[in-house]
């Protein structure tokens, strides 16, 4: 089945057709509630790409999705389906909050590396238990990671309500992080180059960390021995064992890296944006990461592009909620349709296309 289609069709054509289908169905939904789909699309485009403010939000969301998308992608190379990005990012947020609140940080250059380590450690730790259960006990990773999402949410809920909430506050959230942990936003970063980027937008230096993570994941998967072992395990476990690769080690390594990447998302949303830890700070990015990884074919560059697309959808959706009467439930429906088509219904587009290409080839032969 592998070589049925040319590479370009696999990488470009299928995601494109899926997207078009999703948008067509979304248009039907918008028409059904009596709104104008063309105007809605226009609003999404200007709202997500039309100004530096809009780009600031699109890139902010994209940064989240790059981290969670990479997390899913790395695990996927070892044929592990980590759908616990949500929980791992939640715990990553806890790591960031603990680091930021522990010391009166004098400057962000000191706080950032510490927060990165805290986020990665907590995210990896949250992935470690399902990984160990999979490696040693054969408990299915899909089941355990998704359950750990609920446990993670409950743990954070408990900590925010009972332990980390400042005295006298009614909102279940931590205190504000000290000023020394304030990360430079794109506004601050671009100002020296004479580029006036919106001051209010939350995109920050974490975006650069996300880009660096893409490059590092590429090097890890295709240029290191561990990456080779991960891919070998993913293609065939018996063959990997025959080649002297220990599955337990690979499962643990892949899942720890995956969890750490998901946890790193918290540097962006907790430290870079909210500057305090609130409930539901992940906002479903862990699950979007699955769609991003599937659409990006588990390649870091693909993940990067897919993350930008989903950043656009998220920010565009927020604009729709602000400026139209389309109810919030239907905006979630539209976002879900895109995820459904690009993620879950991949084969619906793939199979007819493969048949088509097969037919073309036979015709030529």
């Amino acid at each position, binding site marked *: 089945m592998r070589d049925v289609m040319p590479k370009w069709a696999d990488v470009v054509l299928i995601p494109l057709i899926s997207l078009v289908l999703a948008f067509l169905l979304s248009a039907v939904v918008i028409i059904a509630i009596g*709104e104008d789909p063309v*105007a809605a699309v226009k609003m999404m485009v200007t709202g997500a790409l039309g100004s530096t403010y809009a780009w600031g939000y699109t890139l902010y969301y994209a940064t989240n999705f790059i981290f969670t998308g990479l997390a899913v992608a790395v695990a996927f190379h070892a044929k592990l389906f980590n759908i616990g990005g949500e929980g791992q990012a939640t715990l990553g947020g806890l790591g960031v909050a603990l680091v930021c609140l522990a010391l009166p940080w004098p400057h962000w250059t000191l706080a950032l590396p510490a927060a990165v380590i805290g986020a990665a450690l907590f995210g990896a730790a949250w992935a470690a238990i399902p990984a160990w259960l999979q490696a040693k006990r054969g408990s299915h990773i899909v089941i355990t990671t998704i359950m750990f999402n609920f446990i993670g949410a409950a743990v954070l*809920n408990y900590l925010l309500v009972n332990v980390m909430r400042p005295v006298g506050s009614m909102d279940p959230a931590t205190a504000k992080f000290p000023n020394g942990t304030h990360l430079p936003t794109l506004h601050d970063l671009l100002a020296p180059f004479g580029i006036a980027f919106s001051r*209010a937008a939350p995109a920050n230096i974490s975006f650069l960390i996300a880009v660096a993570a893409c490059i590092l994941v590429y090097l890890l998967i295709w240029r290191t021995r561990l990456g080779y072992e991960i891919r070998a395990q993913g293609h065939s476990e018996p063959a990997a064992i025959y080649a002297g690769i220990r599955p337990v080690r690979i499962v643990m390594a892949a899942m720890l890296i995956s969890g750490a990447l998901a946890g790193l998302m918290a540097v962006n949303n907790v430290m870079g944006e909210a500057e305090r830890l609130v409930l*539901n*700070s992940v*906002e479903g990015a862990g699950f979007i990461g699955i769609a991003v990884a599937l659409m990006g074919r588990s390649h870091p560059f693909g993940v990067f592009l897919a993350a930008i697309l989903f950043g656009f959808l998220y920010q565009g959706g927020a604009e729709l*909620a602000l400026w139209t009467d389309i109810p919030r439930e239907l905006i979630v429906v539209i976002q879900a349709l895109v995820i459904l088509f690009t993620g879950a219904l991949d084969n619906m587009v793939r199979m007819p296309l493969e048949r088509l290409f097969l037919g073309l080839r036979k015709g030529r032969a």
Partner: protein
Amino acid sequence: MTLMQKLLGAGAALAVSAGGALAEPAMVYDLGGKFDKSFNEAAFGGAEKWKAETGESYREIELQSEAQREQALRRFAEAGLNPIVMAGFAFGSVLEEVAADYPDTKFQIIDMVVDAPNVRSIVFSEHEGSYLVGMMAAMASESNTVGFIGGMDIPLIRKFACGYAQGVKAVNPDATVIQNMTGTTPAAWNDPVKGGELTRAQISQGADVIYAAAGGTGVGVLQTAADEGILSIGVDSNQNYLHPGQVLTSMVKRVDVAVYNAFKAGADLETGIFVLGLAEDGVGYAVDEHNADLVTEEMQAAVEDAKAKIIAGEIAVHDYMSDNTCPVK
């Protein structure tokens, strides 16, 4: 109004903001949702009333998650909307930051005090209104057991519970008040199923009047109470109409008036801290055609008497939030 007109309107709002002039007011609802039949819907009612009277339009948003609060406020402020009204204590910490960044925009927060020069903080004396409905609950109860179901377990809701319990005990010192909270997170504002379960649990313990101070969760409480044939007490909005003849009364909190007044004042909104109690008609109990048969003359006389005494200062209802304790259980 078609979407295109709205787009143009939004564009116009942006253009106007660039010129520094004032524009439409904006309303931000909390996680319970605009149609929670209670707190947020009261705010919506006030905004709609202003719209109907002036014929002008306003912008609004329902939040999808906690993390959206700041984006919603900033986006509206960037667009030059003024004033921006938000319903809910949870906006407090976010508003502290956002208000400082937009000194020319007026903000109004309900249920929370934010000390900033361009913020109007509205807080209500919910304990006083709850005291009155507590008295009515005790008088209507035959089992001498009444219930309270709160939304999120926060001092604000305990303030409702404490005022209610004081009112009950004032009428009948031997009465039992069963108290439950739906949860500890904002999700507790919109969980009618759990509200119904708690109602059933309280009924099994003998409660025959239940007061719900739980936003959208209260819809489940009132529904279950009506199904099981006991009385309930609504909150924030007048909810008597939801189950005519089965809702004893509603502790109305005039969120609608607060929103209406803010919209009416526009960019000239007076800032500062405003406390609305019985004397200001900020809180009270609702009597209308749906519950007229339930509220006896004796009941109404007693409650009116207590109301006058509270306003005159002869009865002091303890405010839970003043010291985080309640003198009665």
